[in-house]
């Protein structure tokens, strides 16, 4: 770039939950282009969603000023409010609720991720334990599975694709549901010679590059894994030294796994036994440089928890923890000899109240870090365990993300206060009392985060341009509300510079240290624990080992090895509805972006060619999709490579948000068919694939 009016700003994307490092070219105060940060990615690579945010920043169809509802909830009638008025309105309501029902009657929900320190601090400061995020329909089961077995959540380990020799992906559509670095790393690994096996109920762009691709019967990935374990244990192909040192429960696993032979799994999954054996041998040959992707969206069915456990069992058997090419424990600032980054959540006193969702008292094996937001309507409607009167929903849309929006809405209707903070108009925004517009990521600086990993770093999301509308950054909104509610002391800053100075104070860094590359490196090279003696620092279980038999589960009456239960087939005349993602959209939240909308404005209903022929359906025919009293139409897309029991569509379409004209009612809305699925499974996930629909030619 040249000229005095041009600059580059390093920042962090906020479009999806990957949060890639970006470099923003700014010209005359406007965004010229958004790239990946070459200092972290090795090039200016950036996925289509990230770069398309230039159009969202310029869009008029964003929340442009605070709005207070001016009619019945959901009537679509709003009045423009000043920040002063909107914040006073919210604070007065919250004060009244706290006075009558206690702080615990306030619930805070967001999209999760590393940027929520202020959210957690704020709700804690109000005396509420009730923070939750989207993960009930995302990765609750895998986080909870790893938490029980390894004492840490899923994202406390990183994939070392650079050195990996063999990978298995279980419906992890890594080349369509993409994060920039992960997709690039994966392709680099393939070019280097990594082999991979992909299982799914349908063919995807990821399947197209696989060495082995299996279309399996829905819900039977677990049976596939059990047979892999059966072969690896039976033929003693595991890493005996690793298992003897770091695994607890090998004896129990050995006796449990006996009946689950490849021949048994062939009958369950449809994958030929000899192919399963071949995969087990390939894994063994490649060990410990293996990655069995733990999963991204893992809220498929009630069995998901045990599928994820079986993945970690395989990692243990193959000795892949802290091995080059396997799973590397994430390190943080303290592993590099620094004092911790200061966190706001440590400021307010501990809250001793029970959680609304039962975690910690009814469901002791599930982590409160993510919570189970699917229980919110139940808690509100039944005042179980106590009255819940306010919900603050931050950049998150449970009416789009969760199953059964009608049931969720019934709960919301009984609230005294529903606040939506967002950059976009959303489904939940439409039924809120107040919408507060957050400045979008390109327009705000957020608190510093620790990016854990084998080479940990500090990252900063940094303002590139002035907010286009009357929107405000997170630090300001939280501080303003906290002051009004008498808890401002937990947020000891007046502006973002002071906030960041406070965070960095014990580490010896300053804001300007981010200028050159957008991040602060905490270690010049990878930090690895000693595989013979040091993995107790990674396994945070009571035994400091990988617990195949989990002491935490046993204590809570949950079996580590329950007998396998076969998933059911769809009822006569029905198909199982499976949903997923593509590279150009982050579920519904990007559908109104003009460039992304241009590429994919509607979703289709994918189905098996032979099943379609039986129903007289041809490619691009309009089909009627019905279930649970809901009828919608979509165009059919036929594929030979989708399981005959399944129909598939993209998640997030059919948005009922009139203020987003490009995406309003475009396509078919998937979650309305998922009635009754706001439920708890053993892994804390909603079983969103337990949904069946009928298809006929429209």
């Amino acid at each position, binding site marked *: *770039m*040249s000229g005095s009016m041009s600059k580059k700003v390093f920042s962090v994307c906020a479009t999806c939950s990957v949060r890639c490092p970006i470099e923003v070219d700014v010209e005359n105060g406007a965004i*010229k*282009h*958004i*790239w*990946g940060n070459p200092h972290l990615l090795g*090039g*200016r*690579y*950036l*996925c*289509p969603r990230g*770069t*398309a945010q*230039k*159009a969202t920043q310029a869009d008029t169809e964003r929340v442009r000023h605070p709005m207070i509802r001016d009619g019945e909830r959901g009537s679509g009638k709003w009045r423009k409010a000043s920040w002063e008025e909107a914040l006073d309105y919210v604070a007065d309501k919250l004060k009244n609720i706290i006075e009558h029902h206690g702080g615990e009657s306030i619930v805070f929900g967001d999209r999760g991720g590393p940027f929520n320190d202020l959210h957690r601090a704020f709700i804690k400061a109000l005396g509420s334990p009730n923070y939750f995020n989207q993960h009930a329909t995302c990765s609750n089961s895998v986080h909870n599975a790893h938490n029980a077995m390894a004492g840490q959540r899923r994202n406390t380990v990183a994939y070392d694709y650079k050195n990996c020799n063999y990978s298995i992906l279980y419906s992890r559509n890594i*080349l*369509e549901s*993409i994060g*920039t670095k992960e*997709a*690039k790393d994966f*392709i680099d690994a*393939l*070019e280097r010679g990594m082999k991979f096996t992909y299982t799914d109920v349908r*063919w995807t*762009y990821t*399947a*197209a*590059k*696989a*060495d*082995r*691709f299996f279309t399996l019967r829905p819900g039977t990935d677990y049976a596939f894994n059990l047979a892999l374990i059966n072969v690896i244990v039976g033929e003693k192909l595991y890493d005996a030294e690793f298992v003897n040192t770091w695994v607890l429960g090998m004896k129990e696993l050995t006796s449990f796994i006996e009946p689950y032979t490849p021949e048994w799994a062939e009958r369950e999954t449809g994958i030929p036994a000899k192919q399963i054996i071949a995969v087990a041998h390939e894994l063994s040959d490649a060990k410990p440089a293996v990655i069995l992707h733990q999963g991204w969206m893992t809220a498929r069915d009630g069995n998901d928890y045990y599928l994820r456990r079986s993945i970690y069992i395989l990692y243990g058997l193959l000795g892949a923890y802290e091995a080059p090419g396997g799973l590397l424990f994430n390190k943080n600032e303290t592993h590099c000899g620094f004092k911790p980054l200061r966190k706001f959540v440590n400021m307010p006193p501990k809250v001793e109240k029970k959680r609304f969702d039962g975690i910690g008292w009814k469901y002791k094996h599930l982590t409160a870090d993510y919570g189970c937001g699917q229980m919110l309507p139940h808690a509100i409607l039944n005042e179980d365990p106590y009255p819940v009167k306010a919900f603050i929903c931050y950049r998150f849309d449970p009416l789009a993300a969760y199953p059964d929006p009608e049931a969720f809405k019934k709960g919301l209707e009984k609230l005294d206060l529903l606040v939506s903070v967002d950059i976009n108009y959303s489904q939940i925004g439409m039924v809120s009392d107040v919408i507060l517009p957050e400045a979008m990521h390109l327009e705000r600086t957020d608190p510093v985060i620790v990016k854990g990993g084998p080479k940990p770093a500090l990252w900063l999301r940094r303002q590139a341009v002035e907010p286009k509308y009357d929107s405000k950054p997170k630090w300001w909104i939280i501080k303003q509300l906290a002051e009004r509610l008498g808890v401002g002391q937990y947020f000891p800053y007046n502006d973002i510079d002071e906030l960041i100075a406070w965070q960095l104070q014990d580490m010896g860094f300053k804001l300007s240290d981010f200028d050159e590359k957008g991040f602060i490196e905490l270690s010049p090279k990878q930090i690895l624990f000693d595989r013979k003696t040091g993995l107790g620092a990674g396994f945070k279980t009571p035994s400091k080992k990988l617990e195949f038999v989990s002491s935490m589960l046993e204590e809570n009456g949950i079996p580590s090895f329950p007998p396998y239960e076969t998933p059911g087939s769809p009822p006569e005349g029905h198909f199982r509805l499976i949903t997923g993602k593509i*590279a*150009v959209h982050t579920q519904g939240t990007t559908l109104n972006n*003009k*460039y*992304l909308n*241009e*590429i994919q404005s509607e979703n289709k209903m994918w189905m098996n060619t032979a099943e379609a022929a039986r129903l007289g359906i041809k490619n691009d025919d309009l089909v009627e999709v019905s279930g649970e009293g809901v009828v919608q139409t979509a165009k059919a897309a036929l594929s*030979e*490579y989708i399981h005959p029991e399944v129909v598939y569509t993209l998640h997030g379409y059919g948005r009922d948000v009139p203020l987003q004209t490009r995406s309003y009612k475009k396509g078919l809305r998937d979650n309305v068919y998922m009635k009754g699925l706001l439920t708890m499974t053993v892994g804390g996930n909603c079983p969103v694939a337990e949904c069946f629909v009928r298809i006929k030619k429209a």
Partner: protein
Amino acid sequence: MSTYYIYQDQKRCIGCRACEVHCKTEKDIPIGPSFCKIIPVGPKMSGGVPRINFIFMPCFHCETPWCVAACPTRAMQKREKDGIVFVEPSLCVGCKACITACPWGAPQWNQETGKALKCDYCKDRIDQGLEPACVTGCTTAALKWVSPAESTQMRRESSAKALAEGKSVP
């Protein structure tokens, strides 16, 4: 003379369309026209797995461009120093002769201005020593900014490797 070529490594391309979006945002292209496009072709069974090709269709900046020959107002031009074919909007009368002439569908129609639009290899970026936005932003570095001669060498190397491994040459 044509100096440049965009090489697409089929093995690296994931069909994510980042090239298209980087192009549109770089050039602020309105809805409708697109200077480059990924066309998925397949799936087709090969070696027991259904494979797909994502064909990258930019403008090829022909040595003898049909569009330049067809343009009656000299709006469509070929840059002397490096062979970049571009349209000068002030001279374009919207006759669409270039759109009719091009066998590749490269020239595009801008409904808002009533003029032709097309890929200019991001010549402003090229002149600053940078690469086109589609290449720079490509998620998996599947697109490479090379000379035509380099591209043939790259293609030979990848084909030779595939042959040696007993795989089909894409």
